[in-house]
């Protein structure tokens, strides 16, 4: 990918394999889950990169590996000029202040025994960036920022609704004034009317603090709404990456085309007009992915070459990357 000055995060050839072990006392490795298999992308300063795919495609693993919550099998993650993969101990801890995460499940990601004030203030305590008094002030500010009453800080998570809990999660992620936030399906556990509240909040905060997001979701319409560019993942690899509008209007990969046609449109007339591509079968297991192109088992246009040669992830036209032998047909 072309080097640009405003690239904040650069991921090169990232691989994450999880070993499958068998045996109780003497464990033997019997295979690997190819969760993420050699992906490269960059995230520009101030943009939102959407990462979309179905369950098990490796999108969450990508998010966690970028933040070094999982150590990658190989590859590099360069953030602000520092390779996070090589960073250790104090250096990594220091970098983590700038990289935060918002989790999917607002019910599981907040400790039920801690008050909201303790939860939101914990990053400040861990990183020893402020005195107790400053922490209290900062927590009150943060709660206000995400639209919660600052007096809530002595309450416990169970006293809040799902949408409010997710706001607490957002406040915690903002505590250390990060520049980059991985949002791992932050709204999929919420009701429709609440989803819009949280998405609007994320957009407002992005503008206010010039944040950069990696927004992970399975809902293509939400990803399209919030992202500047979109990467589509399938079975551990990125199959297509392009500007949001470009990806919607001119999808080059057959999987992206099928995914787009599968997204329900809340408009019966528009919905009836469009062409439906119904994929056959299910996603194969990442333990033993298909040879060659990973999508070929479900692909409507697969030919014999697809079983033999894995298509190279290449720039089919400026800014539009795709991994398909026949992408040029759709140009």
């Amino acid at each position, binding site marked *: 990918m072309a080097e640009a000055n405003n690239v904040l995060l650069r991921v090169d050839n990232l691989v994450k394999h999880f070993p499958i072990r068998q045996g109780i006392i003497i464990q033997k490795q019997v295979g690997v889950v190819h969760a993420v298999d050699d992906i490269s992308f960059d995230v520009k300063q101030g943009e939102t990169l959407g990462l979309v795919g*179905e*369950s098990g495609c490796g999108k969450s693993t990508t998010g966690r590996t970028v933040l070094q919550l999982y150590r990658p099998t190989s590859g590099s993650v360069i953030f602000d000029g520092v390779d996070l993969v090589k960073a250790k101990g104090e250096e990594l801890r220091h970098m983590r202040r700038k990289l935060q995460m918002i989790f999917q499940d607002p019910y599981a990601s907040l400790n039920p025994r801690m008050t909201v004030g303790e939860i939101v203030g914990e990053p400040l305590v861990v990183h020893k960036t402020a005195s107790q008094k400053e922490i209290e002030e900062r927590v009150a500010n943060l709660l206000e920022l995400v639209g919660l009453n600052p007096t809530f800080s002595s309450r416990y998570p169970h006293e809040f*609704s799902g*949408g*409010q809990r997710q706001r607490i999660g957002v406040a915690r992620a903002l505590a250390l004034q990060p520049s980059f936030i991985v949002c791992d399906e932050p709204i999929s556990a919420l*009701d*429709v*009317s*609440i*989803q*819009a*509240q949280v*998405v*609007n909040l994320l*957009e407002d905060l992005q503008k206010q603090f010039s944040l950069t997001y990696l927004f992970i979701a*399975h*809902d*293509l*319409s*939400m990803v*399209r*709404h*919030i992202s500047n560019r979109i990467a589509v993942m399938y079975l551990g690899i990125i199959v297509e990456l392009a500007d949001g*509008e470009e990806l*919607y209007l001119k999808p080059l990969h057959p999987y992206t085309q*099928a*995914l*787009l*046609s*599968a*997204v*329900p*449109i*809340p*408009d*019966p*007339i*528009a*919905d*009836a007009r469009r062409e*439906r591509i*119904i*994929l056959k079968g*299910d*996603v194969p297991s990442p333990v033993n992915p298909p040879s060659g192109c990973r999508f070929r088992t479900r692909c409507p246009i697969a030919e014999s070459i697809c079983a033999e040669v894995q298509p190279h992830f290449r720039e089919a036209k400026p800014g539009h990357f795709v991994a398909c032998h026949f992408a040029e047909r759709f140009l």
Partner: protein
Amino acid sequence: MSDAILDVKELEVTFKTPDGNIHAVNGVSFGLKEGETLGIVGESGCGKSVTMMSLLKLIPSPPGMIKNGKGLFHGNDLLKMSNEEIRHIRGSQISMIFQDPMTSLNPVLTVGLQLEEPLILHLGMTRNQARERAAELLNMVGIPNAKDRLGDFPHQFSGGMRQRVMIAMALSCSPQVVIADEPTTALDMTIQAQIMDLVRRLRDELGMAIIWITHDLGVVAGLAQRVIVMYGGFIIEEAPVKELFANPQHPYTLGLLGSLPRVDEMGHHRLVSIDGSPPVLYEKPNHCPFAPRCKWAMEKCWKENPPLLGIGIEHRAACWVDTRTGSAR
């Protein structure tokens, strides 16, 4: 409605909890015509599932209690039937597809046995006949090598395949009504498209009426002929599908549509969010349940809960305000 095969009148359901009685369904009335696909839309806790479950006596009681109402199926009140009587209807004339196919299939029985059970119980088939029919059913819902897979257990199927098994089971006795409770919510996007395609095809072939419960207006747009929107245990809007999307009237329906991003959107529009969160009703409200979140709310909305008012042909909404003009109706 005289041509309705299912006619629900003034259904009220409450749940007893340590904090008081929760009014989950508050006087819901609707009809279902033969062969019609009716979408019921609402967020979690709006009473959409409870309405359907209580019609089939699937609500655990206590804590659940049907306070009032009728559920007429071909003129017979389902709610007055004994457990024995309703058991003959459930699964044979009215069947259900549940959200999570993993928890609604029995994990220790083979798929074949579970498919054969209703055939033997309701249709009086012998085991051999049932086995043959079960294979046909699996084949019909698009499971390859149907015959060989009858001996498999649910965990040997993927999520989409399990939902196909559930659909086969629901259709096994050729029901007149199928109630589908968020059947695609747990599935991936491309698998959801497969299942919706299958349901459309089976509906055209078999002609059963479908009640499709969902929180996703997009799914309803692609499937239903008529839509009911629920909020706080009330029906707040009801219209044919094209009319609802072209001319939504209730502020809540408008809010829901505004808060949905569209994959075909061009340029960037800020989503219209609805402030606040859905209510938990410890008592039947004497004002509009949506008033606390409504930007159009006026004095009358806090004094009297609006009934469903006629707006157009087959279009009704429960709102005192005409949202087109912002003035009182």
